[in-house]
């Protein structure tokens, strides 16, 4: 085969949406090539058609809903769109493989990971002996830098971390050295350090296996790090394409420019008056939390989730908690809300220790500290109207229904939504709108402190920027203090007065945001900062 011929050539691809939606096509007239040893990044926000494109190549579209209406998809010269179902099964996993976004849900939870990797070989190469398959699985797991492959292949997906699961996905995709690897947001759900490792891994494997990668992403940081060619999509159409340097530094299309501008970068705000407040609203002293679990054989395992964590929070201040997954960020948030009871240590809310409260005193305390969760799709009850969600808490705590409704209407306007939306259900809103609703719900309790756990991590960059701005405006108007838990250092720098860096349950560094990111004292902080995607791209911002 001619090596200059592209592995994947998509020409004039159109995918129709069912009638009655806001546009007629999910993808319209899309053309792109992926060559050997090349990473092509398709960038766009949710709804841009980038994931539909990826699924169309794999023929994984739900064909009753999304139909390919035009164009060709050629994989090594063969038209995928016209292939028979049997032929498609031969191609999938063998000549083309896909890596999915959610390592948490994309692996079969009741199958050992070694078996899941081996399955690809068993399907396509049934003649290979069991021992060779086993040896190959161990080799692949080593290739993707999974520790101790011989033992790890016997565990189930829930027993390993998110980053490790994503490596399993990658090992699975690489098993038969396919010509084309499609990666749909392969690193979105991962920590910065894991993300950097995985992106490096991609590069390494690409050369080793001589394949091409079609990567779907919304993160221009990732694009800056790995792309050889960039395609920017919006509403199902390509708006711009080219070399990454050119697209990133001299974007032509206004949409590309807007996207690049929305990428969070390090930006600090300095509000010394916040830190100078005499009376802290929250003081945490030596907080320690241990998770205990007992295995089937009665072996006890202890995990120290929080280890002597201490800090104070001034009224109106925003404290960022950053660190990798498993560093104790979420455990800290849960303990502050008293979803977990600490082993030892004190949580002083306005001078009263709440670490050991229970019963109705605890319920009453919870009013003052409210949480906003990561997933706006799962944290609203789908069967309840927005109004019910927003008034339930205040009514429970003694507000009359009429007053609660009045407050809910006010809050909806405050977060930039129409008060009429109170009558609607969560599924009628977009992710960004739902997160606004969650913010309104938290504010309905008139809390002194808001704990936001990865509150913007699931949102598109432009929406992320809007929600961050909303937090800032609301904080200025209402004056709550905020604990902002995030794995994204750039986001943290945008909104936090001070930053606490957590590692293995301990705060390793705590100080004003600019100082922590500008002159990090701890090695771990430096490591985190170095792993931020698109580090180079940050130095020369587009604006």
């Amino acid at each position: 085969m001619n090596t200059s011929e592209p592995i994947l050539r998509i020409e004039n691809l159109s995918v129709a949406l069912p009638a009655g939606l806001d546009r007629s096509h999910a993808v319209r007239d899309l053309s792109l090539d992926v060559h050997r040893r090349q990473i092509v990044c398709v960038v766009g926000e949710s709804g841009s058609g980038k994931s539909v494109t990826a699924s169309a190549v794999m023929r994984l579209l739900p064909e009753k809903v999304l139909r390919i209406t035009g164009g060709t998809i050629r994989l090594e010269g063969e038209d995928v769109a016209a292939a028979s179902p049997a032929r498609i099964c031969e191609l999938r996993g063998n000549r083309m493989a896909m890596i999915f976004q959610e390592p948490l849900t994309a692996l079969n939870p009741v199958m050992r990971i070694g078996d899941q990797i081996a399955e690809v070989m068993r399907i396509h190469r049934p003649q290979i002996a069991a021992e060779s398959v086993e040896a190959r699985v161990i080799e692949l797991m080593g290739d993707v830098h999974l520790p101790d492959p011989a033992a790890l292949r016997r565990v189930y997906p829930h027993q390993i971390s998110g980053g490790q699961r994503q490596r399993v996905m990658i090992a699975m995709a690489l098993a038969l050295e396919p010509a084309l690897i499609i990666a749909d947001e392969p690193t979105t759900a991962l920590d910065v350090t894991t993300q950097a490792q995985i992106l490096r891994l991609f590069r390494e494997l690409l050369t080793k296996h001589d394949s091409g990668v079609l990567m779907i992403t919304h993160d221009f940081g990732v694009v800056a790090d790995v792309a050889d060619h960039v395609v920017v999509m919006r509403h199902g159409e390509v708006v711009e394409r080219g070399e990454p340097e050119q697209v990133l530094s001299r974007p032509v299309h206004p949409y590309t420019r807007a996207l690049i501008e929305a990428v969070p970068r390090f930006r600090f705000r300095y509000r010394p008056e916040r830190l100078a407040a005499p009376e802290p609203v929250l003081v945490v002293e030596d907080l320690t939390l241990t998770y205990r679990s007992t295995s089937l054989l009665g072996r006890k395992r202890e995990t120290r989730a929080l280890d002597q964590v201490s800090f104070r929070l001034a009224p109106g201040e925003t404290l960022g908690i950053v660190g990798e997954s498993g560093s104790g960020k979420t455990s800290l948030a849960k303990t502050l809300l008293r979803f977990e009871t600490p082993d030892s240590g004190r949580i002083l809310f306005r001078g009263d220790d709440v670490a050991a409260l229970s019963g109705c005193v605890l319920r009453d305390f919870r009013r003052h500290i409210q949480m906003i969760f990561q997933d706006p799709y799962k944290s609203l009850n789908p069967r309840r109207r927005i109004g019910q969600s927003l008034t339930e808490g205040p009514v429970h705590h003694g507000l009359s229904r009429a007053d609660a409704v009045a407050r809910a209407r006010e809050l909806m306007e405050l977060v930039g939504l129409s008060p009429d939306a109170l009558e609607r259900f969560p599924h009628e809103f977009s992710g960004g709108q739902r997160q606004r609703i969650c913010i309104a719900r938290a504010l309905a309790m008139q809390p002194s402190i808001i704990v936001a756990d990865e509150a913007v991590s699931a949102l598109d960059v432009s929406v992320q920027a809007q929600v961050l701005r909303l937090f800032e405006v609301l904080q200025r108007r209402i004056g709550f203090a905020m604990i902002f838990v995030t794995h994204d250092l750039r986001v943290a720098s945008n909104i936090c007065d001070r930053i606490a860096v957590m590692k293995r349950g301990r705060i390793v560094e705590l100080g004003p945001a600019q100082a922590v990111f500008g002159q990090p004292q701890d090695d771990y902080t430096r490591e985190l900062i170095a792993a931020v995607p698109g580090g180079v791209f940050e130095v020369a911002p587009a604006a």
Partner: protein
Amino acid sequence: MLRLIALRVAMAVPVMLVVATIVFLLLRLSPGDPALVLAGDNAGPEAVARIRAEMGLDRPLLVQYFGWLGEIARGRFGISILSKVPVLALIRDRLEPTLVLALSAIVITVVLAVPLGAIAAWRHNSWIDRGVMMLSVVGFSVPAFVIGYLLILFLSVKADLFPVQGYVSPFSDPVAALRHLALPSLTLALVFMALIARVTRSSVLEVLGEDFVRTARAKGNVERRVLWRHALPNAAVPIITVIGLGIALLISGVVVTESVFNLPGVGRLTIDAILARDYPVVQGLMLFFALIYVGVNLLIDIAYVIVDPRIRY
């Protein structure tokens, strides 16, 4: 695992105690007097009183209760008032037909209903799906005795394919046993199948929408393998739960089915004992059924751990 079993067995003790109390009270407080039944129509009041005293029915309720509990704790379930045979021996003699019937019903169910439900889910909204769902509505809504008599009418009386009633032990004559068992097990299994097919369908339908099913397709799995290897094992927990709960349904089904097909099993024994107000036998049977139910639940809990590695106790 051993700890789980030990824990469950320990937990069964208070459960059984509560069941025992309820069983005891239910019978004593319900109207009707076994002494009257036993004494016959022509007995005078003295004869009735004598029988009552012999059986200890004249003593205070609490005394009767604790006396009975003590006996049970020693493994003595009393002696049948009617046949003067120890209750345990009575149950033991009648156990085989019931176990054979129940087991064959469960096997029929699992072998037929689980695949039918899975296929209905896979071919969601197709004619197969509609057919399976329609049959399950029928299975649910038509009572077992109606189905039993209809089967007898058409397959035994009219078509003469199966014997009308009676029981042959599979240990003595397997072929005749199979012919005798076919209709009763089908009758018993039908409600159960309707239930399991429905649960399997909804459970598999939910799993088919999960991300890992898409991953399985992306690996090049053919649809059949996606369904059996990936979707069904993940849908197993609710299915197993309902199979476990369905055992209760099966127990009541056994009573009716054995009457319809005239099988000498525990179900028939139950009806006879209740009609004759044979207290010790009824009590013993209820405890026996409760014990089976507790045992089945233990098995279900163990099955959970086997099918889903994420479940740990």
